[in-house]
């Protein structure tokens, strides 16, 4: 279905999400093509994070949250009881909206994922993974002298980059990013965008962003949400130049809300 001809990595069909009585998503059908960046945009509270969290079943952890419809990864229903959530999450990694480093050292924060998944055979490999991940998140230079100090002592932006590094370190197939740059300055943002571009070669990426520019810069496909509905989805270029829906157009030009 992808206009780019890429295979579909993840797919949502009529996805509905309820938080207790409150419905947050009203039947969203969206495909995520492989090795591409899909951006989710839309006004605050429209359900972007909610959809994103359904993709690796992080919604399971919220009490009273019910997900309906069909969601697949490589054609497997990820809400099938037989599916393994842990493996799913290892394959579909996530970076959250609020930076949430563990109360451990910077090194341990990044090493955590590789450790539990047994990705490093020995300490040296682990060091390598950590360094590589920190570099890719453009944090290494800033923290190389204090790898063993607490990750919580970093500035907000540094913390967020740390979380990105942590997610990259387990080399997932899909990376979900919930406004990864909202706490970053332009330079760091540019670096992360570069990184996303780079990652795209091997990984599938879904990114939630508030910045139209960012969506335009990094994504190949864009999906526009509004009030829990998917308004429009399509190639980014098309979306930003000639959106079919009036609401999209209004949103992009900053005319509605």
């Amino acid at each position: 279905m992808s206009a780019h001809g890429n295979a579909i990595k993840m797919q949502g069909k009529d996805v509905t999400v309820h938080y207790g009585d409150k419905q947050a998503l009203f039947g969203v059908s969206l495909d995520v093509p492989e090795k591409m960046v899909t951006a989710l945009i839309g006004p605050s509270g429209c359900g972007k994070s909610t959809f994103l969290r359904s993709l690796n079943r992080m919604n399971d952890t919220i009490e009273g949250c019910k997900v309906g419809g069909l969601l697949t990864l490589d054609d497997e229903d990820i809400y099938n009881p037989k599916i393994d959530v842990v493996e799913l999450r290892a394959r579909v990694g996530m970076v959250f909206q609020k930076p949430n480093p563990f109360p451990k050292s910077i090194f341990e924060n990044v090493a955590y994922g590789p450790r539990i998944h047994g990705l490093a055979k020995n300490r040296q490999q682990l060091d390598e993974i950590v360094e590589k991940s920190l570099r890719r998140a453009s944090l290494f230079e800033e923290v190389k002298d204090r790898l063993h100090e607490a990750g919580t002592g970093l500035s907000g932006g540094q913390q967020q980059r740390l979380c990105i590094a942590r997610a990259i370190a387990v080399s997932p197939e899909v990376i979900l990013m919930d406004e990864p740059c909202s706490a970053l300055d332009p330079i760091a943002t540019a670096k992360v965008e570069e990184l996303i571009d780079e990652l795209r070669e091997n990984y599938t990426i879904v990114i939630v962003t508030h910045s139209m520019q960012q969506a335009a810069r990094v994504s190949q496909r864009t999906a526009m949400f509004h009030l829990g509905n998917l308004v429009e989805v399509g190639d980014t270029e098309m979306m930003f130049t000639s959106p079919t829906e009036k609401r999209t157009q209004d949103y992009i030009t900053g005319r509605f809300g």
Partner: protein
Amino acid sequence: MTDIALNPVASARPARRDIGLKRRYAAERRFKLYGIAAIAIGLFFLIALMYSVFSNGYTAFWQTEVNLTINLDPKIIDPDNKRATDPNVLLTANYPILARNALAEKLGVPTTNKPAMRELGKLFSEGVRGQLRELVVANPSLIGTTQSVWVLTGADIDSAFKGQIDLTVDQTRRKVSDQQVEWMNKLKGEGVMSQRFNTGLFTYGASSRPETSGLGVALIGSLYMMLIVLCLSLPIGVAASIYLEEYAKKSRLTDVIEVNINNLAAVPSIVFGLLGLAVFINFFHMPRSASLVGGMVLTLMTLPTIIIATRAALRAVPPSIRAAALGVGASKTQMVFHHVLPLAAPGILTGTIIGLAHALGETAPLLLIGMVAFVANAPVTPLDPSTALPVQIYMWANEAERAFVERTSGAIIVLLIFLAVMNITAIILRRRFERRW
């Protein structure tokens, strides 16, 4: 467009990584199992303890009584007919004889048969004196009439009635004679001897006779002490924790206080008794055996528990909440009392529950301030001599008479009910405050 299966890329997917799922899931299951096992162990011991207490103690809530038709004979109560002038006559009259005669009549024993009458006299409790006295003093016009009264049987008869005395052994080896057992069975057959709910267990004070000894004094004493402990240790403990956690600059002094408090938690409870004796009784000249002193000693003993729990709870409140409050211009005090304390409340309540439970069950410190004592008169104020529930349990556990065995367990049940009532309140409060963020 959904026909993905035809897409060649799908089949060229790299093999899945091995992230040791099998092993990790086994670990997960094991971990969860440990949790269940841990709870099961805890509950198993709880049930075992409860079973041993309840199976021994439930009988204490029923007491054997005998229904007697007593003739309140003025010739015995007031032989000289002076009750109008001398109030002491009714107080000191020989009431047990009335009961004995009534019983003798019922069983057809001639009152002239002295040895039989003595045996018979032990069927019912000496407490009948007080019971009839109360009846007559409250209403002197009853004198001369015949009243049907339920009278407590003697403790040994009660034990025999409940099957707690082995009646197969030779009668010289037991406290009830064959004759008495025969009478007992006869009265039981006639339906005039039966078990009735033992209200006395909750109202009587200490007594040397098992059947008339109760937890009245101990309940009042424990109630006073718990009120004192609650009213002192909760505010003081929370206040101290707030100071240490929120106000005090981390310094040598706060370290000293912190270590100090942790250390006080390890001080054997009897040492608090020594402290209470030295400070409250010897120095401040407070009365011995008083629940006020007991309450204060237990307060000092409970404080560390509450402080440690409260500090842990305060520390768990995320700093961002504090920043938020300060950011809108709340003072530190407002920040603490409006935001931090409510969030820490569940932890504080847990500490309080555990601390109070500890205080409620403690005997050793009370030994030294004279509360492990025989106290018959119910205390009116916290300054009067009284005992406490665990003390009564301890003292009954050391009694020789068989009838005290069930009472010991019965008293434990009462203590646990007391504890339950106390905890349920706290638990309801705790649930109200509990929230995740």
